[in-house]
């Protein structure tokens, strides 16, 4: 028993999740090594994909650590982006959207989200567009 209990700093596990890209919803396993996502494997026993995945599914982990991702909320002021706090950003968005909705009606607003958000985030987004803004104009880059 002793050898095994020797404290190791290695941590590897696989997390079951659903692919965020197209509407198929293939089951994937994200490989996490020491807290960093390093790869994807399709779930063998998932009823939809049964161990297969398309090329987007196999690389579903790649966007997580992409350098192009935003780290702080940005607001465009005087032609350039400024970092602001979350409260300020939410306040700005809410005020302006409210104004547009009053002046031009809810259907003048469209919501565009991304397949690289989690399925849950996209659900909240479309629910918010429909229930709060009051429009059906919602889409994302891979609604296929």
């Amino acid at each position, binding site marked *: 028993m002793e050898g095994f209990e020797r404290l*190791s700093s290695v941590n*590897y596990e*696989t997390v079951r999740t659903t692919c965020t890209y197209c509407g198929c919803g293939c089951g994937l396993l994200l*490989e996490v090594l020491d807290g960093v996502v390093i790869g994807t*494997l399709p779930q063998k026993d998932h009823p939809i994909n049964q161990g*297969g*995945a398309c090329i987007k599914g196999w690389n579903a982990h790649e966007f997580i650590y992409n350098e192009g991702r935003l780290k702080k909320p940005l607001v465009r002021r005087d032609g350039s982006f400024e970092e602001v706090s979350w409260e300020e950003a939410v306040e700005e968005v809410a005020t302006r959207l409210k104004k547009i909705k009053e002046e031009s009606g809810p259907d003048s607003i469209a919501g565009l989200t991304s397949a690289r958000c989690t399925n849950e985030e996209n659900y909240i987004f479309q629910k918010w567009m429909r229930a709060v803004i009051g429009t059906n104009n919602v889409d994302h880059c891979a609604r296929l």
Partner: protein
Amino acid sequence: MLEEKEVSAILALRRNSGHPTPFLFTKAEDLKDCVADEANRYPLTKILIKIAKKHPNETIGIVVRGCEERSLIELLKNFQLRQGKVKAIGIACSQELANQCRCNRPFPSQVEESDLAKPVEDFTDIDEIEKLSEEERFQYWMGQFGKCIKCYGCRNICPACFCPTCTLEDANLVKPGGMPPEIPIFHLHKAYHMADRCIDCGLCEEACPMGIPVRRLYRKVKKSVKDLFGYVPGEKEEEKGPLEFLGDGGYELPGAGK
């Protein structure tokens, strides 16, 4: 069932809300969730390469079936894993599993206990193709390869595929873009590259979302290598694959000019 050895962790399948998923066990009490005989297989040896690369000084145990042990031997031969840093814990597959996988050796060389399943020697899938005429064969294979969606699943999941720069992604050898990719060479490139490394685990065919019978192709190449050079991958640790070294005339050279 598992003997505790001097390892930092053991890589095996773990029951995760009813689903077997690869996991690295670091605590003895977690081992009760470990699943052994399971029809859903994952390329554990390939995962081991990734872990070992990041933690080269740790010794890691891995639960292996027959096919995974062959893969382990091949990877050790090709210097993807270090000899003293991997400890294999063998388990045998059930007869049902052996029949399903058409495995020719469903148990590793050192297995803990339990009855050993009978190996399945079945070449009917290759013979079926060899009975067809040349044109029929070509039509059959082009029809099958034409289904390919270039997901790279067969390559990503293969325990014998480890090149950091893959031939299939080289724009000079395989034209990029286009669906299906350039066939038949897309599949032939991989078949040749793995000619003396394929361990016939069958993960490739299971991973293909289009159901292309790629395993048949790789088994044929494996049989060719066996017939020509008498070499079977994954068996002896000392023997190097015939296509991995220039040659010393030791193998009987096939005649030229044919």
